[in-house]
């Protein structure tokens, strides 16, 4: 089922949680709502589920207005950050809940419920915990049970609110790969909220980047990472370095090198953003855009070498180079080197 959010606004007191937000989710997509806390992503999810009501705008489920539909009639599976499992019920009863509360004429028989619950437990690979209480499970297990419970009613949409937010780093990584595979098998329209860019980039088909109640950008992980439409998106999706470029005597200069280039347009100054891995490190200046820096810190642990460097004007840079490059250059702390942007991810001009 597709979901269409049209110009939704939601205000809590004096705080505008959502400001004229529109979004379309196609059937079968796995979408991440990504943003810092307070950006309105959870509010949007709750409005789609009917747990909050919007002050303005409408929600369309498969083209139909959902405004008159209560939460219980929306057929959405909702997975909460803190699981919200029924603590007084066993895992079995938790998963069976959605089937047991169905109106009598739709309610499956006890045997059917049993089969369905075991099928779901098998799906989340936790068949052996059926008779336990939620408090006897680990965080990752609870989250998978919460997912199984949400799936029991065969929802048309799956909404996940920071599903991995309260889990350990290891379990988190494992569970998000699992979610990706899981979605590939079931193809249920899914939206999940996260503030972890890595999670969003790894799992989602499409990422909706939110900030201060507004959508900044909607795109594939590749698009939002490599072609951000704003400095916010750029900053939020990974580290970035800022180059201040000035126009002096009609020439554009970056960093410390004298300007030789003619600026592309009539501008006074420019801010250029470059990702850490898109800087080359050399002993000699490569071009007029090279900036002379001193290496402040080198961390060779990991798949790439992370370097912190400081320019003469006090500007700090974060650089990532490969282990091979690091060895070839034979870098040490306090070395003087040149940084040259290979690719500028995003620029802002002041005219």
């Amino acid at each position, binding site marked *: 089922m597709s979901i269409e959010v049209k110009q939704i606004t939601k205000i809590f007191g004096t705080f505008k949680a959502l400001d004229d937000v529109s979004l379309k989710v196609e059937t079968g997509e796995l979408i991440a709502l990504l943003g810092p806390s307070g950006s309105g992503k959870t509010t949007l999810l709750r409005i789609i*589920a*009917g*747990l909050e009501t919007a002050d303005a705008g409408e929600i369309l489920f498969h083209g139909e207005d959902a405004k008159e539909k*209560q*939460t*219980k*009639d*929306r*057929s*959405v*599976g*909702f997975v*909460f950050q*803190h699981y*919200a*499992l*029924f*603590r*007084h019920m066993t895992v079995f009863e938790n998963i069976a*809940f*959605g089937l*047991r*509360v*169905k109106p009598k004429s739709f309610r499956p028989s006890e045997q059917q419920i049993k089969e369905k619950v075991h099928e779901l437990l098998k799906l989340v*690979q*936790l068949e*052996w*915990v059926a008779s*336990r*209480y939620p*408090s*006897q*499970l*680990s965080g*990752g*297990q609870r989250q998978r049970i*919460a997912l199984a*419970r*949400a799936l*029991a*009613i065969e929802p048309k949409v799956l909404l996940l609110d920071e599903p991995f937010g309260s889990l350990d780093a290891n*379990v988190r990584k*494992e*569970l998000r790969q*699992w979610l990706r595979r899981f979605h590939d098998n079931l193809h249920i329209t899914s939206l999940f909220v996260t503030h972890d860019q890595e999670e969003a980039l790894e799992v989602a088909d499409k990422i909706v980047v939110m900030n201060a109640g507004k959508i900044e950008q909607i795109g594939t992980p590749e698009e939002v990472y490599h072609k951000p439409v704003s400095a916010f998106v750029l900053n939020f999706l990974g580290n970035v370095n800022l180059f201040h470029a000035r126009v002096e005597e009609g020439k554009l200069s970056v960093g410390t090198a004298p300007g030789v280039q003619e600026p592309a347009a009539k501008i006074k100054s420019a801010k250029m953003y470059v990702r850490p891995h898109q800087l080359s490190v050399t002993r000699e200046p490569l071009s007029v855009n090279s900036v002379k820096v001193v290496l402040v810190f080198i961390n060779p642990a990991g798949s790439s070498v992370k370097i912190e460097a400081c320019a003469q004007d006090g500007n700090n840079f974060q650089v990532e180079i490969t282990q091979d490059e690091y060895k070839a250059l034979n870098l040490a702390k306090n070395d003087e080197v040149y940084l040259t942007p290979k690719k500028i991810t995003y620029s802002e001009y002041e005219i």
Partner: protein
Amino acid sequence: MSIRTEQPWVRRALIAAALVCLALFILLPLFVVFFNALNKGVEVYFRSLNDPDTFSAIRLTVITALVAVPLNLIFGVAASWAIAKFDFWGKNFLTTLIDLPLSVSPVISGLIFVLLFGAQGAFGPWLMEHGIKIIFAPPAIILATIFITFPMVARELIPVMKAQGSEEEEAAMTLGASGFQTFWRVTLPNIKWGLLYGVILCNARAMGEFGAVSVVSGHIRGQTNTLPLHIEILYNEYNFTAAFAAASLLAMLALVTLVLKSMIEFKYRAELSARDGSVGAFAGVAAGKMENHS
């Protein structure tokens, strides 16, 4: 292990002081009640209880509790549900209002009803015209008791419900449960021990209330006397054995209440540990299995 910083003699002195106070102010009076009641033998005790006025007082007390407790149970659940799970205008005011009967003298609580329904009261003339008797009759006693025991259930439930939040209810709704199903299957099981506890306290207070009931009752023997009022009358008539015999009934109610309360706490703790106690033991196994499965 607890950390002890006080000297041993300080500890012993404090424990002794607490025990002396307990003996002096609680155990001794309780003993006096039963001692005086049974002073002239068991036969006299039962004979003094076997009296139509005493029976009628017991009956009125029981009826009052049977009306007041269920009503306050419903009210208490509704109020604490509203206060704990929703945000609305005037919520703080409602919370304060619920506590009002506890902060007001019971005599005032009784007077309110006299002023409302008495012969000179606001509704008095109208009631008299229609031949409805409230003041100096059982209805006033029941009303005053409801007013006095108003906060008992709600005060027990509000903290419990607040601590539990509303996520489980929201989860139930997304799973298709109606409002009633959500309450019956999710909210109620989570609050049942707190609820039972509140009901027991409410009942004890309803049966034992003196001040407010005394103002509205009229003290008509065999008609508008509750057990506490009846005890006072007997005592004022120097009928000590009968007074203490009746008092022993109320004292026994208190003891039963205490036992029930401890049993509930014990059961609640047992249920919690059945659910949570084995976490430690399972955690290792669970972690191992999880790795195997995923």
